[in-house]
């Protein structure tokens, strides 16, 4: 076991984790942040995506101990403290981009990371940004539309 300190969704956490414990298990089992899903467990489906220092990573491929000193954002950390959804989350609802919901936290976080870098992404950039996350339901079209909608709304807010 080892002691680590990391910032998760804006709050500093001191945790004791196992030497081979994965970040996805730490988030789900120790912290109850079950919005992060585990799909394949080998980094191919992207369902376990979280942002590590602002960058999308597969949390099944990161040791919990490697998060020491780093900043993690999960889907639970995206809405405002009063519960108001982030524009990306709201756009996913409005565009009908959610069916079973298993990929949604990862898709939303990938979209959020993309829109943190640019509010005018091309469709190609959107497709690339979500290319590491599998969706078995939607056929992706509504997800792409949701991200375009979120970008459009966020451009309006930023003006």
């Amino acid at each position, binding site marked *: 076991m*080892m002691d680590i300190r990391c910032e998760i969704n804006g709050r500093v956490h001191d945790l004791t984790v196992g*030497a*081979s414990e*994965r970040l996805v298990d730490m988030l789900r089992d120790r912290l109850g942040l079950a919005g992060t899903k585990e799909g394949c*467990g*080998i*980094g*191919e*489906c*992207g369902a376990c*995506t979280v942002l*590590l220092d602002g*960058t*999308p*990573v*597969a949390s*099944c*491929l*990161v*040791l919990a*101990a*490697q998060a*020491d000193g780093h900043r993690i954002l999960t889907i639970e950390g995206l809405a405002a403290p009063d519960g108001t959804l982030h524009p990306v989350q709201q756009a996913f609802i409005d565009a009908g981009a959610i069916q079973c919901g298993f990929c949604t936290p990862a898709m939303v976080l*990938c979209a959020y990371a993309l829109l943190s870098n640019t509010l005018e992404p091309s469709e190609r950039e959107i497709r*690339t*940004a979500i*290319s*590491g*996350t599998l969706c078995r339901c939607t056929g992706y079209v509504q997800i792409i539309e949701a991200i375009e909608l979120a970008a459009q709304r966020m451009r309006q807010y930023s003006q």
Partner: protein
Amino acid sequence: MAIQRFMQVGSLDDALQELSVHKEQALLIAGGTDVMPALRSGLYAQKQMVIDLSPLAGKLGNIRHEEDMLHIGPLVTHSRIMEDPVIREFLPILAQASAHVGSPQIRNRGTIGGNIITLAACADTVVPLLALDAQLVFARVGGVRCVPMASYLDEGETRFDASNEILTDIMIPLPNSNRQGMFLKIARRQAAAKSRMSVAVLTTIAGHRITDARVVVGALMPWPRRVGEAERYMMGKAIGEVDPMKVGALAAELAITVTGQRRSFAYKIPVVQELMRRAVTRVLGTQGEA
């Protein structure tokens, strides 16, 4: 899993020291994109501790341009290689290969050092690194060795002593001439899929003649190889004299010689020929216009 300890090291010397003490019991990890699935599947049952190299990113995670040599630290991620302005300008073939690795999530964590060390048959960056005459620097307690990429691959199972040494630098000579390259890959889908086959073609042109040619095939054989026959065929020819299909045929011939006929070759051989034809056509087409 038998891993009892996790250790982050403060310096390369510390890492080498720990490695020299724990040897086979130590598992080195950086991005973890290859190590983590293997760890879970029980591949590292004999390992007792993890040594995390990621705190060494300040020293081993930089891209440095020194005179006519580019130094890429082994902890540099594929995402950074894709975005680096010097690599994009002078070694675009490497940026292309890194862009084909896994998915954004994998490229944000996975390192070029990991791609070289784990050396899957389908390791994407190894294909251009072979074409680019990359040199690898390995450190151990009390010494370093510098190995050309080609020799590293040819050493087979003995190529790397994971219980004793750490990859510390990838050196790539930068071109000073009209050089064009192309990396192409085929996988079952575009993202997060292993290469079924990949090719790299790199040519230098002077006065409309090919003065240097590198032709590499990846994923078809136990590890990527240069296609010497194809390189000799292209050398010295004028751009218009090269038959791209011939280059593809020579690449296919090498694969069959190395591995023998395989059932999958009914599909792979015509496809690798076509992939090679496209790469050669594009590379020479670009240079023909120049």
